[in-house]
């Protein structure tokens, strides 16, 4: 008897038209043009071509833009001399920078009190206890920097915007492709995968992250954890990020996770995690797969499967063997629950 599950093929058909035809999908595909229901298989069915881009309208826009450019250039030529060079944070730096404004208090940038200006690459904003600063991160989002904080701009470009939170706290809201926005802290690096989160760094360099939308990866000291919305994690100097937990996870579960972070081979801690874990804790269970031994991975997979039937395309044996592809696919599946908890 074959182990092949025909549902795998049906999912392939939904994905890219490959595999066995899923009759429900084919029927719905057939709605878009006559005769397409079966021909759509293997991408032979061409969709209707969209209308062409209206060149005439575009040319009119270009012409209008050219006229505007001529007018602006004329005005610039008549502008007076700018005077002496501005302060480091008072104007855009040649190497790029982020615009910021104080919404409370009197923050410092470049050693001076600056109410509004540009955070240059290599520069830093420092806030006092009652200060609050809003930083515009290119065109992808904003950072709200709280009191007693220091935020530096490490670099900005098409491939990455990187900042460093040396101390204090911030709230970041970003809408951008994954990995474009990165914040270093003394004990871990937060890599944005499209989201909103709070990040805090204490005087000793330890950090805390809470994600309110999307997903953040925390990296440091050889470990990477995935923290989706509704979850948090702590980072420790010299140890990197700990296992994430749901914001409303039971305190006893968080305690057991902390023990596992110190010693991933602690059998009593693993027993307690598996006993206490409920559906919301799948984020903790999945992240543990990367640090525990194969036998423990099997027990974790079984607990996850008991909480939410895993998809047919993720095999237990592959997860137990530590196959990164299988573990990644399991994460992709679980992300649906993490990011859309309202969907059954």
């Amino acid at each position, binding site marked *: 008897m074959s182990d092949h599950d025909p549902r795998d093929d049906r*999912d392939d058909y*939904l*994905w*890219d*038209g490959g595999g066995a035809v899923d009759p*429900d*999908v084919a*029927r*719905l*595909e*057939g*709605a*878009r*043009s*006559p*005769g*397409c*229901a079966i021909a*759509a298989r293997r*991408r032979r*069915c*061409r*969709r209707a071509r*969209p*209308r*062409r*881009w*209206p*060149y005439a*309208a*575009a*040319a009119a*826009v*270009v012409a209008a833009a050219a006229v505007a450019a001529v007018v602006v250039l004329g005005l610039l030529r008549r502008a007076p001399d700018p005077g002496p060079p501005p302060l480091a944070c008072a104007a855009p730096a040649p190497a790029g920078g982020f615009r910021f404004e104080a919404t409370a208090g009197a923050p410092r940038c470049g050693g001076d009190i600056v109410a509004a200006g540009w955070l240059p690459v290599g520069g830093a904003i420092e806030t006092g206890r009652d200060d609050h600063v809003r930083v515009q991160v*290119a*065109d*992808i989002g904003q950072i709200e920097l709280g009191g007693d904080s220091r935020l530096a701009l490490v670099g900005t470009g*098409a491939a990455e915007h990187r900042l460093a939170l040396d101390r204090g706290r911030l709230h970041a809201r970003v*809408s*951008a*492709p*994954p990995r*474009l926005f990165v914040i270093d802290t003394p004990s871990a690096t937060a890599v944005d995968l499209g989201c909103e989160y709070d990040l805090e760094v204490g005087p000793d360099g330890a950090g805390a992250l809470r994600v309110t939308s999307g997903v953040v990866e925390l990296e440091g000291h050889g470990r990477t954890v995935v923290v989706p919305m509704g979850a948090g994690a702590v980072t420790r100097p010299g140890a990197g990020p700990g296992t994430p937990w749901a914001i409303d996870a039971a305190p006893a579960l968080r305690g057991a996770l902390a023990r596992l972070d110190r010693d991933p081979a602690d059998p009593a801690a693993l027993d307690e995690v598996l006993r206490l874990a409920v559906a919301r804790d799948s984020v903790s269970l999945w992240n543990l797969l990367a640090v525990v031994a194969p036998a423990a991975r099997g027990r974790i997979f079984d607990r996850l499967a008991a909480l939410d039937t895993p*998809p047919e395309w993720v095999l237990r044996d592959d997860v137990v063997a530590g196959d990164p592809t299988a573990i*990644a*696919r399991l*994460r*992709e*599946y679980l*992300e*649906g629950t993490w*990011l*859309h908890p*309202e*969907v059954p």
Partner: protein
Amino acid sequence: MPAAPPSVVDLVIAARRGDGAAFAHLYDRFAAAVHAVVLARVAWQDCADLVQDVFLIAWQRLDAVREPAAFPGWLMTIARNRATDHLRGAGRAPRASADDRVPEPAVAPVPAAEVREALAAIRTLPEAYREILLMRLVEGLAGPEIAERTGLTPGSVRVNLHRGMMLLRDRLGATAAGEDA
């Protein structure tokens, strides 16, 4: 060997320099996805004009995209906003489906009424599933193409297709059961 198609980033950079042909390439590549995003919200017969509006806005504001890689998500946001504005102006409920005058082909494998029913069912799904299912089922985009057009990861698209299709089967099944009763 045929040359690889230009990347979205290259096309955006060229279009920002005023290259109309590059923008036409972007239009060809993204029109179906924009149509799906709009169709998730407004009646079928209004979609074609709205798609044109979305690209006209994009062309006028292309300089605002400082990261060319962010173009797909930026364009989809314009499409969602334009569709919402259209509904606001027309004073119509966003999920109205009775207005959908679905084109009736000469030899239709699926009756237009059934298409309307499927469209109405898709519009009741969460947004994350709605747009992606329309891209796959109505626009005929494959999963990897949807990922490129939306800026989502292929894994995320695959999972959302899978879950969205499960929900859609349930909703269409429930409708059919209700009619049979």
